[in-house]
């Protein structure tokens, strides 16, 4: 469509001036309109494959280009992920590249607060000198990099190698700490290897699909379509939605189970209790394949990371010990349906129904979860409990029978979890605390032994707390917007002249670039070559298709150039186009250990492949005989990665703990935050697409009709939401697309002008250190009536 001036169009249509129907337009006006609509379009010059830029689903798109610009996309019918379908964000992808305010040149903040354009050479020299100065004067604990689950594999790998292998610091953490770290610690605790065993094919093969804290209809729309289609084809398929708020996903569910925030821990234990009592344990599966584990359970020792000393540094470490089936049974005695019902508010009958679903070995069960489980003060525990349900029933590693963690960012898996851009990790499941792992990395990187420090760096929230305290002299943020997405945002307000140096690489101005001393323009998506890894272990490669605007450059290039200027060029020894060489070096970490990635050459010619890829063949089901080449001969299931557990999976005993903050007389409502279908994360991309912006132009607060009546609030009224940490004025929505139960409200977090994270609490999961954005206490006040 040619750009159509709306005023001209409206004038032509008579809209706003008597609403004249188009059919009544005279020929001249019709001709004007026709001309404005553009000449007959020329076909695109080329359609090329790429994964979508947004969520962790990893839909394939074909990108249409003409005259060096992206002009269209279409769903890739060859992609096994989406089979040609996209969601509204995906269909509007091309416009995210062309917001009028794209960052095009490096800009340095001046003493008066203004920004001055500088050259790349000056910018890169300045970063190198700032990091060098910090390292020389204050050591590796004074430098940090904050990355992203939207980083390509190249960006993440370059950052990891530079920070851990070059600067000898582990202060590298990503925004993915805020979204799926609990899934990482969950899988690691149970299988000693990250990421799910199943794949998206499970969506069609399952008889019962159970959503735990996941609004897939809005957050993973294309995968949700696959579930709905499966339901249509096989009417016996059931969808069960377990959540704290009715969402568009609940509308399609055969059973909606609503629990009090945080009580999912009790609910899952209640289901386990019934499975034990009803003799539904898969005894021979457990005997052959499982061990039992138990960790620290004392609330006083664990805390929530948001009060007392923990409010500055949260370093709790779990202390696992061996447990047993007997202890497991005794532990579950407390979780009777009656007690669980009292804690959770879920009727006994529904708990029994859930137990009958997980306990039915004739029907295949797929559990799916996302932010409700991960952004949880006991998120790792909740991950463990969901997987426990599958381990104790043996409903795992079989097509259609699996626990499956969904991710929210396009390469949360490929870059953060697999490359290992977390403060404690190295590539392919390795951690900095393990001497053998450090030695392997040092060998592959040709670095002297002892280069990589053994102490984990700051996790995301602590990184920003340390920055605030002045412990970090230099912080470089790439591809993320923490001054919108961090919890309890008021804590992180910067004071001018604080002596710290903050660099932000991004594609548009954001509240985070507003905080930066140096802003770098990044090339995004098909403006550069890249690799993403999606939720189902699919590694997807794409080529650069168009030139980035102005002087924008890809994040990995920025890092490599700075490293070279710091005398660390040996880390990146390749000349010319280094993409394939860098990928193949990274790939060497993955080979022969069940994390095997496909060769770059193979990735270039396919619509992505599910690792482990052995002899060029992908693996749809990990640990499953007949699917996974690493499984020992004759075994149906073999958890070969869990060397520390005797190649068995761990069933964890995890108790119920209450949330960090609960409603009281002063703040009587629960606040839950999240996304909406039309906007992705902090909205810095989707809000620049008119169609998406117009659909949801600003954040709002959803509330229950009964609460609204009691408070005298109507849809459209301006209300003030207040927590112990901040206040925010928002438009009220009653019975919107989501319906929060009585005593709770929901606010989306995409709107940089209405920052709900000024209200949220920086309480965290004890093991993953992922913040809980789903539970804190607020009150709601009327501001003015709708005019």
């Amino acid at each position: 469509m040619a750009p159509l001036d709306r005023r001209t169009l409206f004038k032509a249509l008579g809209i706003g001036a008597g609403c004249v129907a188009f059919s009544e337009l005279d020929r001249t006006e019709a001709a004007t309109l026709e001309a404005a609509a553009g000449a007959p379009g020329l076909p695109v010059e080329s359609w090329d494959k790429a994964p979508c830029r947004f969520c962790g689903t990893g839909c394939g798109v074909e990108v249409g280009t003409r005259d060096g610009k992206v002009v269209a996309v279409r769903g890739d019918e060859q992609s096994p992920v989406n089979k040609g379908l996209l969601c509204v964000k995906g269909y509007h992808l091309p416009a995210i590249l062309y917001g009028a305010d794209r960052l095009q040149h490096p800009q340095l903040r001046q003493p008066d607060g203004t920004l001055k354009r500088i050259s790349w050479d000056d910018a890169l020299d300045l970063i190198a000198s700032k990091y060098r100065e910090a390292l020389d004067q204050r050591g590796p604990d004074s430098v940090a990099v904050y990355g992203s689950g939207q980083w390509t594999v190249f960006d993440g790998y370059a950052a990891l190698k530079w920070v851990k292998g070059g600067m000898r610091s582990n202060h590298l953490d990503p925004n993915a700490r805020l979204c799926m770290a609990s899934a990482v610690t969950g899988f690691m605790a149970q299988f000693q290897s990250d990421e799910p065993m199943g794949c998206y094919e499970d969506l069609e093969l399952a008889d019962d699909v159970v959503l735990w804290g996941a609004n897939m209809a809005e957050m993973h729309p294309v995968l949700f379509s696959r579930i709905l289609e499966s339901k249509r084809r096989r009417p016996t398929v059931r969808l069960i939605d377990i959540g704290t708020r009715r969402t568009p996903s609940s509308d399609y569910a055969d059973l909606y189970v609503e629990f009090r925030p945080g009580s999912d821990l009790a609910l899952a234990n209640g289901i386990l209790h019934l499975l034990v009592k009803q003799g539904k344990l898969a005894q021979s599966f457990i005997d052959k394949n499982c061990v039992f584990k138990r960790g620290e359970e004392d609330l006083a020792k664990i805390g929530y990371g948001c009060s007392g000393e923990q409010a500055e540094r949260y370093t709790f470490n779990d202390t696992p010990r061996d447990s047993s089936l007997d202890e497991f049974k005794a532990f579950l005695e407390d979780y009777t349906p009656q007690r669980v019902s009292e804690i959770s508010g879920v009727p006994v009958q529904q708990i029994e129904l859930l137990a009958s679903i997980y306990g039915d070995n004739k029907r295949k069960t797929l559990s799916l979860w996302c932010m409700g489980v991960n952004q949880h003060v006991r998120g790792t525990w909740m991950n463990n409990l969901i997987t426990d349900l599958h381990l104790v029933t043996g409903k795992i590693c079989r097509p259609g029978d699996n626990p499956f963690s969904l991710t929210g960012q396009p390469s949360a898996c490929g870059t953060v979890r697999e490359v290992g851009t977390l403060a404690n990790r190295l590539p392919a499941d390795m951690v900095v605390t393990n001497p053998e792992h450090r030695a392997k990395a040092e060998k592959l990187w040709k670095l002297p032994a002892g280069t990589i420090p053994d102490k984990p760096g700051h996790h995301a929230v602590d990184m920003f707390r340390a920055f605030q305290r002045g412990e970090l002299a230099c912080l470089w943020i790439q591809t993320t917007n923490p001054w919108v997405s961090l919890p309890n945002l008021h804590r992180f307000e910067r004071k001018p002249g604080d002596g710290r140096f903050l660099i932000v690489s991004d594609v548009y101005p954001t509240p985070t670039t507003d905080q930066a001393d140096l802003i770098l323009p990044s090339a995004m998506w098909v403006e550069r070559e890249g690799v993403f890894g999606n939720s189902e272990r699919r590694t997807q490669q794409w080529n650069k298709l168009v030139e980035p605007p102005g002087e924008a450059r890809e994040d990995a290039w920025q890092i490599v150039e700075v490293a070279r200027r710091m005398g660390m060029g040996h880390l990146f020894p390749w000349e010319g186009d280094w993409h394939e060489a860098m990928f193949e070096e990274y790939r060497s970490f993955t080979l022969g250990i069940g994390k095997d990635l496909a060769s770059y050459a193979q990735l270039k010619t396919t619509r992505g492949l599910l690792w482990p890829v052995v002899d060029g063949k992908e693996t749809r089901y990990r640990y499953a005989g007949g699917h996974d080449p690493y499984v020992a001969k004759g075994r149906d299931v073999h958890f070969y990665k869990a060397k520390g557990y005797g190649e068995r999976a761990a069933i964890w005993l995890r108790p119920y703990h209450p949330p960090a903050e609960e409603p009281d007389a002063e703040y009587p409502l629960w606040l839950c935050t999240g996304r909406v279908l039309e906007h992705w994360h902090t909205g810095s991309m989707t809000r620049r697409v008119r169609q998406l912006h117009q659909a949801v132009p600003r954040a709002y607060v959803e509330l229950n009709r009964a609460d609204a009546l009691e408070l005298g609030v109507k849809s459209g009224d301006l209300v003030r939401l207040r927590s112990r940490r901040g206040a925010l004025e928002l438009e009220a929505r009653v019975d919107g697309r989501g319906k929060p139960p009585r005593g709770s409200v929901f606010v989306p977090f995409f709107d940089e002008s209405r920052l709900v994270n000024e209200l949220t609490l920086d309480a965290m999961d004890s093991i993953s250190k992922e913040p809980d954005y789903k539970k804190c206490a607020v009150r709601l006040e009327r501001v003015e009536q709708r005019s």
Partner: protein
Amino acid sequence: MKWLASLAIAALAACGEAPADSRKLAVPGREGALKSSAAVRATRRLFDGAPPVIPHPPLGAACTQCHNALGMDVPELGFAPPSPHEDTPGMSALSRCNQCHVHAFDEGEFVASTFVGLAQDLRRGERLYDGAPPVMPHGTAMRENCTACHDGPAAREELRCSHPERVRCEQCHVAQREDSSFVRL
């Protein structure tokens, strides 16, 4: 058609839109009960191939009540075009219409855009000779229901088919793929 009815019911239950929304629309639509044309079509898409925005306010009913296999004449609103997705294999889930189609309220822009999308290709399908059936000048993914655009009151005049009673369109009109040139190896 039984599943269709059940889908419509599911969609009705699922629609859940606020019935009264007084916000202005950003695209020509309800007020004018517009006659279909290429120009109007262009105003409702980011680029040719993008899903159209919804040019009327939320009506509080399931989309498929009116946008069904045949379309429906809606008093005061005009003719609701049929859904082109009715025959899309594996796409029943499109009953979740808002997954791809959003309402276009006049909210202005957050930031202006310089994007210029693919314009409509208004060229007609080629014919091998005068009298031969034209090939389809577009792909059919997500628009398998040909009659949605080629028949009925909502069809643009220039696209209207002279023989809608011959149900199996692809028997004579074939889609063209870009890479379809035949090279003998």
